[in-house]
């Protein structure tokens, strides 16, 4: 761990090397242990400021970052830009200037356009954490997913995860599959041909049916949220048909139970679409663990990044 280069921003998973991944994941463990104590706070970022900048509505991720920052004793400003007033592309540079003037130490940013956190990062001295940009990346989600898988499988190498659903429009699928691959976890995609990109990394196999999923013996089934508006883009004929073909129902759940597979989902869940109510009660569901690990991983990320703002005297 000693050879770690200082890093200003966390923008994607692609650019992380294994030592950085290990550093964050191993630091997240003691942070999580902290949650069992009556006082869940450490003074690591006392006097530092975190700006939570969400250009897309997200209760979960923004609260998770907020809690993480609070537990590190940072001051947090939440800034949610409603979609109606989202500034057009032309004023991105103005926005960045404003942000720079606020002199935050950390900027957590979610934006509907891929690449925006990276552009912000280039223009500010603050550390930028990508909290999801378009279909591009959601690196802290991937890290919390990895932490979750490693908790149930300390020997995670060679484990198998199948990601089910709308891969095409999913930054979670992209980041999580890339991170799992880096950690030696095998990843397969399962979903309709309209939503699984034909051109993707070679290490990503595609499974064509639940039978193929069961035959592949996945250790984890990772369901993605299906946006209801996708049926308008003719990606599938109806929500009912999607549920019939790709949804996790009781019958399929029984097969998973027999294999001892675990269930993950980045949330929020669309009940009755990608998953039925019964499946939500599955005893091997890791969905709440993912939420808890999200806070620990985000603490580890904020702790790790080094802003270029000011110098401590």
């Amino acid at each position, binding site marked *: 761990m000693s050879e770690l280069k200082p890093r200003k921003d966390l923008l994607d998973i*692609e650019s992380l090397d294994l030592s950085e991944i290990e550093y964050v994941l191993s630091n997240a463990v003691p942070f999580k242990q902290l949650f069992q104590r009556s006082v869940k706070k450490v003074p690591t970022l006392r006097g530092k400021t975190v700006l939570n900048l969400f250009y897309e509505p997200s209760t979960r991720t923004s609260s998770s970052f907020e809690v993480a920052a609070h537990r590190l004793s940072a001051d947090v400003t939440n800034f949610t830009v409603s979609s109606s007033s989202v500034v*057009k*592309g*032309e004023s*991105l*540079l103005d926005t960045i200037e404003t942000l720079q003037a606020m002199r935050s130490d950390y900027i957590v940013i979610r*934006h509907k*356009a*891929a*690449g*925006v956190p*990276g*552009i912000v990062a*280039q223009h500010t001295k603050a550390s930028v954490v990508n909290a999801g*940009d*378009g*279909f*591009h*990346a959601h690196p802290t989600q991937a890290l919390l997913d990895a932490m979750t898988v490693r908790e149930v499988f300390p020997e995670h190498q060679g484990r198998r995860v199948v990601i089910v659903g709308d891969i095409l429009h999913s*930054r979670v699928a*992209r980041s999580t599959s890339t991170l799992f691959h880096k950690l030696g976890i095998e990843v397969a995609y399962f979903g309709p041909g309209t939503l699984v*990109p034909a*051109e*993707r*990394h070679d290490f990503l196999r595609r499974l064509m049916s639940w039978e193929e999923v069961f035959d592949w013996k996945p250790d984890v089934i990772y369901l993605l949220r299906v946006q209801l508006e996708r049926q308008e883009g003719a990606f599938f004929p109806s929500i009912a048909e999607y549920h019939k073909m790709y949804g996790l129902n009781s019958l399929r759940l029984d097969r998973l139970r027999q294999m001892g597979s675990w269930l993950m989902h980045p949330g929020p869940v669309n009940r009755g679409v990608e998953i039925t109510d019964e499946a939500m009660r599955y005893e091997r569901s890791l969905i709440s663990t993912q939420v808890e690990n999200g806070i620990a991983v985000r603490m580890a990320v904020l702790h790790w990044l080094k802003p270029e703002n000011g110098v401590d005297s």
Partner: protein
Amino acid sequence: MSVEKSRLFRGGRIASAVATEFVPEDVLVDGSGMIIARGKGFEVPTEAEVIDCTGCILVPGMFDVHVHAREPGQEHKETLATCSRAALAGGVTGCVLMPDTSPPVDTGNLVKSVMDLVSEQSLIPMYQAGCLTKGREGKEMAGYSGMAARRVPMLTDADHTVPCPYLMRRCMEYAKDFGVLVTSHCDTPPLSKGGAIHEGLTSYRLGLPGIPAMSQEIGIDRDIRIAQHTAGQLHISQISTAHGLKSVQIAKEEGAAITCEVSPHHLVLTDASIHDYNTHFKFDPPLRPAADVEALVQGFIDGSIDVLACDHAPHTEFEKSSEFISAPFGAAGLETAVLLIFDQFIRRGVFGWNLLIERYSNAPRKLIGQQPTAIREGEKAEFFVFDEEGQTRISSDCMHTKGPVSPFLGETLSGQIRGTTLGSRWYPVG
């Protein structure tokens, strides 16, 4: 800079479309801008200005059939004057102006008003193209008779396709009566809509909506069929894929009057070149994978691609500094086209200057019914001086366009354009 003085270009070697070898000869241009002597040891007037071309080559002026000069209406991006300076700095001595201005040039009167501006403002000859459809909206045919009377070099909706095949058919049939070339930006809008870059591994990695290759290919196939059916003359702008090129090759073998152009950026960059969401790499059609680029280079060499055209599309840095998905397509190209082709191909021996002169000087002029230019006695002087041993750093400070956005900013290319002469004027670069 004296207009009346004669000028001697001494010590250089002369390039042409017909020979791979350069001819080491001097060129004397008189005060009226005519080449009056070419050779060695001829008598030179004592007052002649001497341009030392030692170590350099003299290359016929290039001609670009795909230029967005943005005037009228978008003068914050470019003007006819700045565009012409950019052209001269890039060795380009004539061009066709796309009609996607504000308002779009879709009547004879508008053509005349832009051509009047050209004669006042531009340092080089520019020929205003007219719209295929009114307002470039793809709904109604524009008035071709008035535009033909103003001698438009081509009819095109610039970077819009005519979405309805019925209307495209009628446009081609009707344009044929006036003998005007139809240029098509082949595309299938329902397939390309919302896309930002080529649909492939890079669009997957970057999470950007893709523009599939087939959106241009289906457009090419459609327009070739319409051209064949109507026996019209069709020019396909900005070809970008191997399959599209194959369709053109087949149509040519079948005897159709089809030509096509490629841009320098489609010959040297791939979709994998896109990095850091740099919007200067955002083009329409988009940058394609290496296999397509290889096919395009081959087509450029074997002649299935007729013309090089840079799709000069300046934008302000501010406009390009936005989210990748919402940034405008295109970049400035006039000042880098020759340098790029030299740096990437000529210097590496892939092909010679003669091929570049054929594709970027002769063929584009012929395409719109102009005489090719050459460096010989009795011709108007129209050439540039190129130093093959020099280097050019591409930077927005050194560019003459008002919209100096380019994927090559910050790069140093081999070769240097020392200056361009057009008639009696000499425009040194730098």
